[in-house]
């Protein structure tokens, strides 16, 4: 095994030195850094999606049923976060908050608000909560009337109807939009590299800066992102088959 590995690396080195414009050896030497970068990218993306998703459910319900005094502020929140670039939102939190003395003197400053990781997580969560709220609201509003009438006819209380009928069916209808949101969030996570964090792109930029290269780091980063997106869309296709099977057009009989 060790013998085989060495010959593979020798082969790689040979190609890099003699034929290819790209230096594969250098990337192979630092591939562990890329995996750590991927770990950070996945970590922040998944945590933000979980926190943002959990925030979005009550907000979407309040919006869908036009809660008298919550609807307006929630719309303001989603409009603000959907109408502005994530990059600027992140800058606002990470670079901007230090402007205020009361923030720097508060107990949150040391552990959380002066830390790039936490600032990114907070901004990303709020951002994805804004987007998720709106399409989840759409899905809740599109609940077929018959389902609600059936639930009422069974004597369900509004709360039970929410948990048993409206939300499960809305989640299913929101699934295709959510798969886009997940991929979008992964793409947006490149913002991490602009606030000094070493995500996949951050590692690529570091590699290029250190060895004064033009392609290697970015192309490796590109491949890493493509692999992640591939697995995400595979996963969602599986879940759509599982949870949305009843909405697929039936296979027509062969004629």
């Amino acid at each position, binding site marked *: 095994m060790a013998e085989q590995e060495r010959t593979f690396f020798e082969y790689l080195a040979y190609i890099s030195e003699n034929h290819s414009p790209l230096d594969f050896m250098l990337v192979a030497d630092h591939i562990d850094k890329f995996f750590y970068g991927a770990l950070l990218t996945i970590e922040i993306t998944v945590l933000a999606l979980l926190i943002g998703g959990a925030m979005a459910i009550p907000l979407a319900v309040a919006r869908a049923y036009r809660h008298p005094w919550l609807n307006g502020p929630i719309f303001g929140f989603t409009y603000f976060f959907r109408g502005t*670039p994530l*990059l*600027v939102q992140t800058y606002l939190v990470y670079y*901007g908050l230090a402007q205020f003395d009361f923030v720097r003197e508060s107990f949150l400053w040391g552990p959380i608000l002066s830390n790039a990781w936490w600032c990114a997580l907070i901004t990303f969560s709020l951002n994805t909560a804004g987007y998720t709220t709106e399409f989840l609201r759409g899905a809740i509003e599109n609940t077929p009337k018959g389902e609600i009438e059936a639930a009422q006819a069974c004597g369900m209380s509004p709360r039970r109807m929410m948990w048993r009928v409206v939300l499960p069916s809305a989640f299913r209808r929101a699934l295709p939009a959510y798969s886009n949101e997940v991929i979008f969030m992964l793409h947006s996570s*490149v913002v991490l590299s602009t606030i000094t964090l070493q995500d996949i792109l951050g590692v690529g930029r570091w590699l290029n800066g250190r060895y004064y290269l033009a*392609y290697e780091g*970015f192309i490796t980063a590109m491949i890493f992102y493509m692999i992640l*997106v591939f697995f995400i869309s595979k996963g969602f296709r599986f879940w759509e088959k599982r949870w949305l099977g009843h909405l697929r057009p039936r296979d027509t009989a062969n004629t």
Partner: protein
Amino acid sequence: MDSVWEYRGLLLQGTIVTVQLALASLALSVLLGLIGASAKLATNTTSRGVANAYTTLVRGVPDLVLMMLLFYGGQQIVNDLGSATGLWDYVEINQFIAGVWSIGFVFGAYMTETFRGAILAIPRGQIEAGISCGMAPLLIFRRITWPQMVRHALPSFTNNWLVLIKATALVSVIGLHDLVWNASTAGRSVREPFTFMFAVLIIYLILTACSDVGLRWLDRRYNVGVDRA
């Protein structure tokens, strides 16, 4: 807030650069989208394959990565190609050009899907009717396909445009002096980064609100003959 007013000239300059960048990338993306859509709808398997590879690639890679690859690597490729073929002299790829090409390239893929869906929504019989009237392909495109395609494509086009205008903020990372870059420089120099970033957010909200008005006008115009519930 006074400091923002003091730097209004710088912010205005940045806003103009951002808007120019957005419009230029939009034009490129529409062009690429039309080419991509016709390639996807063609009977030729090769062109379909190329178009599918294009949209898959873009769906898989974040725009900032492409932008950096183009900005740092594109220069080298273009000049190597130029000196190898002798077709062109030294070309400089500045931040603006890298931004336009990468944003245009990315959104061209989304526009491809938009236009493909819109063309498919036009009943086939109308195009056949045009052929039987003896219309030339270009005339069919101008009189039958285009007006209806715009109508079907507008909602998704609007969505793409709103995402595109936000994507322009990323160009500040490679150093174009756009709105975000100018504002963060000014914010650092007067030690009020929050105020300036907040002003940027407000300007972006104004830009999207303005384009909303324009697009709604277009929507009305292209839906003139359509009954809506």
